[in-house]
C-alpha cells in the first residue's frame, strides 16, 4: 500500500484505521475514561473523512463546517462525559464501567 498526500484513499485509510482502533477501545476497555478516549478517536476519524471529501470532492468548504461542528460537539461530549465519570467516581469510588449497574437492580 502506497500513501500519497494527493490521493483521497490514503486519508480514508488512516481514517479507517483510527476508527477501528477507537472501536476496539470502546469494546474492550473497562475504564470509563478510556472508553471516552476511544470515542474521541472515532470522532477524529469521522472528521478526517469530512475534510478529505470536502477537499477532493466538491472543493467548497461545507465539509470543513461539518468538521468544526463535530469538534464543537466533541468538546461538549467530553465535558459532560467526564462530569458523569467524576460523579460515578464519587458514588462508587471506582470508574470501572461494570461497577455502575445499580439501575439494573
Amino acid at each position, binding site marked *: 500500500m502506497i*500513501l*500519497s*498526500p494527493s490521493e*483521497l*484513499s*490514503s*486519508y*480514508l*485509510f*488512516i481514517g*479507517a*484505521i*483510527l*476508527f*477501528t482502533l*477507537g*472501536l*476496539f*477501545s470502546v*469494546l*474492550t*476497555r*473497562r*475504564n470509563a*475514561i*478510556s472508553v*471516552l*478516549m*476511544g470515542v*474521541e*478517536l472515532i470522532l477524529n476519524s469521522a472528521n*478526517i473523512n469530512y*475534510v478529505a471529501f*470536502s*477537499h*477532493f470532492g*466538491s*472543493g467548497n*468548504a*461545507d465539509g*470543513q*463546517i461539518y*468538521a*468544526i461542528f463535530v*469538534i*464543537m*460537539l*466533541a*468538546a*461538549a*461530549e*467530553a*465535558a459532560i462525559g*467526564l*462530569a*458523569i*465519570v*467524576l*460523579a460515578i*467516581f464519587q458514588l462508587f469510588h471506582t470508574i470501572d464501567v461494570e461497577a455502575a449497574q445499580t439501575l439494573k437492580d
Partner: protein
Amino acid sequence: MEISTAVFYLVAIITVGSAIVVAFSRNIIYSAFSLLGTFAGVAGLYVFLGADFVAAVQLLIYVGGILILILFAVMLTHRISDVEITNRAAGRVPAVIITGVFLVLLLQTIRDTPWVKVKEVAYQPTTAKIGDLFLQTYLLPFELASLVLLAAMIGAVVISRKEIKE
C-alpha cells in the same frame, strides 16, 4: 520520494502509532498522553488537506481543551500509585474478531471504490469562506451550537458538583 510524501508518511505514522498506544496501553496515563500525538497528527493531515482553519481549531480545542480535560479526569479519579491496574481490558478475543472484520471490509471498500476527484485541487485560505458560510447558510446551526455549549457547561457543573445533604 518527494519531501512532502516523506512528511506525509511521518504524520501518518505519528497519528496511527499514538492511536495504537491509546488503544492498547495498559497504563491510562500513557494512553492519555498518546492522545496528544493522535490529535496533533490529525491536525497535520488537515494541513495537507488545505484546511488551515480546521487544523487551528483542532489544535486549540482538542489539544488545548479536551486533552487537558481528560488528563484532569485521569488525575482526579486515580490514585496515581496504582497505575498498573487502572486500564484493564475485557473480552479481547471477540473485540479483535469484530474490529478485524470491520477493518478488512472498510479497507476493501476504500480500495475498490472509484472515487470521483475534482480536476484541480487548489490551496487557498479558507477562514473567510468558513466565516461567510457560518453567518449565511449555517446561521441557525451556528446559533444552536452556542445553546448546546451553554447547556453542556451548566450540565457539567450540575452533574459533577458534590451533593450537600442537609
